[in-house]
């Protein structure tokens, strides 16, 4: 009996076998291929790449399959793999001005140079279950020809830069120095804005959504407009020392969100529009917007705003709790045996109760 309490090797082995059976499910249905997941569950793949902080759609799809669709578990698989990869160097900063946009919208200006592109979005779908998808042959060819879209790569300027010309929006300061790498250096506070954005880029979507939402409901309110939200492909370039120039090494899909926020001015800054920013792997608009909201709220000190004690303003609170791999590990670790600590609590409690009982008896 006491052996069973302590578990052991056999239990682990059997548990893994059982898990594997559960993952595969009913074998009368064909096994999902990694490429099916990669192609047909793109948004999940995007989330796993972003929070796993590794751009590799195939491995992300593999992780989703292996994790039975538990995205946090899949993210964990990717993180654990990523950490073993050697670092060759850093790419040049990507230029999102040159994004091949499949989606580009603005909530601040109706007509913008380069035009708005609605692109593939669930935004205006009616959320009615499409029972056609239950059928085996669910796909109806559309009249779209996406083969050579976009036919030409046109540079699309960032919309908020148009406000910049008028001087009524704050100027972004170009950082010339290396921003640091949160996966190679321990986090020390206060963190720079660039470092915060790096952390938020791989933070848990749900956590950021909740915190971002709280800013809209009065906890560090900073009323935000979506200046521009764009989704598309950007080339990644890297300078190769042996060559002496930069070459293209990859093309990645990104979502970029720039918010324009009200700002009444402070002791140090004139009244002007301010910005929040979010940049995420894959098509992840909810996350990009949330990051921009939280980014803006965290900038209270730099802009000379009041600290209202709201969670969204609290850098230490946000940065220490936004990572879902850290959070899930620690929250779930209480499943592990705590026999020893519990035993000592039990003893202490019994001792305290005995003492109270003895005191009572003495009085009587």
């Amino acid at each position, binding site marked *: *009996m*006491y*052996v069973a*309490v*302590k*578990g*052991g*090797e056999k*239990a*682990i082995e059997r548990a893994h076998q059982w898990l594997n059976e559960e993952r595969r499910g009913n074998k009368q249905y064909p096994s999902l291929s990694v490429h099916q997941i990669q192609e047909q569950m793109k948004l999940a793949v995007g989330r796993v790449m972003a929070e796993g902080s590794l751009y590799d759609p195939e491995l992300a799809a593999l992780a989703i399959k292996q994790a039975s669709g538990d995205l946090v578990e899949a993210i*964990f698989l990717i*993180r*654990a793999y*990523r*950490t*073993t990869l*050697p670092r060759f160097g850093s790419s040049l900063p990507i230029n999102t001005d040159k994004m091949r946009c499949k989606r580009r919208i603005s909530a601040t200006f109706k007509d913008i140079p380069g035009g708005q592109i609605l692109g593939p979005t669930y935004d205006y779908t009616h959320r009615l279950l499409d029972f056609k998808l239950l059928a085996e042959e669910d796909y109806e060819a559309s009249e779209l020809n996406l083969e050579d879209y976009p036919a030409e790569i046109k540079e699309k300027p960032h919309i908020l830069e148009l406000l910049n010309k008028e001087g009524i929006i704050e100027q972004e300061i170009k950082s010339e120095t290396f921003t640091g790498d949160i*996966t*190679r*250096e*321990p*986090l*020390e*506070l*206060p963190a720079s804005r660039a470092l915060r954005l790096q952390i938020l880029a791989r933070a848990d979507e749900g956590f950021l959504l909740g915190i971002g939402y709280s800013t809209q409901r009065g906890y560090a309110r900073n009323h935000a407009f979506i200046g521009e939200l764009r989704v598309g492909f950007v080339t990644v370039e890297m300078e190769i020392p042996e060559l002496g120039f930069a070459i293209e090494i990859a093309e990645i899909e990104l979502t970029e969100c720039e918010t324009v926020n009200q700002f009444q001015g402070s002791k140090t800054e004139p009244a002007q529009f301010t910005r929040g920013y979010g940049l995420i792997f894959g098509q992840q608009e909810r996350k990009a917007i949330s990051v921009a909201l939280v980014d803006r709220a965290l900038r209270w000190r730099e802009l000379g705003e009041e600290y209202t004690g709201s969670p969204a303003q609290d850098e*230490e609170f946000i940065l*220490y709790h936004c990572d879902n*791999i*850290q959070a*899930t*590990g*620690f*929250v*779930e*670790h209480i499943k*592990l*045996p*705590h*026999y*020893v*600590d519990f*035993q*000592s*609590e*039990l*003893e*202490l409690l019994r*001792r*305290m109760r005995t*003492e109270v009982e003895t005191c009572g008896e003495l009085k009587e």
Partner: protein
Amino acid sequence: MTDKFQNYNFAYLDEQTKRMIRRSLLKAIAIPGYQVPFASREMPMPYGWGTGGVQLTAACLTPGDKIKVIDQGADDTTNAVSIRKFFEKTAGIKTTFKTNQADIIQTRHRIPEEPLVDGQIIVFQVPIPEPLRFLEPRESETRKMHALSEYGLMHVKLYEDISIHGHISTSYAYPVKVEGRYVMDPSPIPKFDNPKLSKSAALQLFGAGREQRIYALPPYTSVTSLDFEDFPFSRLRAQGNCALCGATESYLDEIITNDKGTRSYICSDTDYCNSRTELGHLGNGLDEVES
């Protein structure tokens, strides 16, 4: 599985990472009890499962080493099995259940009953390295408090415990002071184990992966559990003997032996218990002890 792991370096971590950890370790050993930030890596087991300890063990392992892994004092608890297998797989290392044969002991929540000896390393898995965390949640504040040796808050907490409960209501992760300087969290070992921390012949290393901190006690470091002159520190163990080996001094696990809640006790340190039974010591047996 084996093929996959052959792609990984000895003991999983790459040499650059090990070097980074060893540097932090040296600093930690040079300033006993001080929490050194380090760039903790994502490990293939979850945070909270001992990633800090695993990284320290990986950084200290050399191919000839023999390693022992315990969780709750036992070699055969699931997580101890899992971590031991991890090192067998990634380092091809020899393992042992014997405390006195291990070069490195990785532990969660216990210090073995048998005194450690010169040359041994014990690695503790640490969930929350900051002893002041539950008094002050902000890291930026607690670092300042350590820098200034501002430990009044902790003493007030212990005092309030006594005035309210008649006891210091901390029974595990009981705070200690290292060489009269840093207040340190000994990891969630029962306070029964606290005296073993002091003047230990072994090198004691503490790793907190999620919190990115390493700290250490070099051999023969003086460690005192916080207390008051009129309320001296006392150890705490269940009032009983081990049902298997009859030990009267060891830390005990409580076992519920039937539906009526009848209790019995066995040593939490399985190697200690087995060694005693091998020597012929016997307890009263599991079923014969009444609650």
